[in-house]
């Protein structure tokens, strides 16, 4: 337990991070920045899991293991997304989402 820091403060940090990520995802126009917003969302979930694990259920490590797996999967996701973004840059010569949209309703 970290001295003097109550759980709900950590949770507020995580929640604000989560919604900042959602906000960034919805408003940003650069594909890399959108990817960074997603990392923000996933890391807020990591904070949640680790904080719950440490403060409320320290007898098992389920939350910490969950966050390890989230970290690994986020890396794979970023690798695949960056590879596709590189391909997009070669095809469209831009990574602005508004220009990367040829298909319309």
């Amino acid at each position, binding site marked *: 337990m970290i001295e003097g820091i109550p*759980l*709900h403060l950590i*949770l*507020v940090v995580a*929640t*604000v991070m*989560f*919604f*900042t990520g*959602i*906000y960034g995802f919805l*408003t940003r126009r650069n594909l890399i920045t959108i990817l960074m917003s997603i990392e923000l969302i996933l890391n807020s979930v990591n904070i949640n899991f680790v904080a719950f694990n440490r403060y*409320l259920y320290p007898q098992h490590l389920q939350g910490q*293991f969950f966050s*390890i797996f989230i*970290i*690994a999967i986020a*890396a*794979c996701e*970023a*690798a695949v997304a*960056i*590879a596709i973004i*590189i391909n997009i*840059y070669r095809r469209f010569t831009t*990574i602005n989402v508004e220009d990367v949209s040829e298909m319309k309703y």
Partner: protein
Amino acid sequence: MDGNMLVTMFLVAFVLVGGALVFSHFIAPKSVNYQKFEPYECGIPTKGVSWLQFNVGYYLFAILFLVFDVETVFIYPWAVVMKEVGLVGYIEILIFFVILVLGLLYAWKKKALTWA
């Protein structure tokens, strides 16, 4: 854990972010200028195009490093309990490594590791 308190926290966070979104939409001066689309929004103008033609090898190395670097995180939990899990755990981590090595061999075969 106090559920109501957490809901309150959640709503506070929601209102903060949503409020910031709405508030900034109304009071922000609308100016669209070139600086906003700069890669580094710090005021210093960049020289030339930020998307230079880097050698594609950089990207391949970066992506490969990203994946293989993070996979090692799974070895630490095994190392902590190595003695308890014994031979079965050892074989399992070997299988894990074999699959990773296959991935590396694949990258090698695809000439992702040669600097061309």
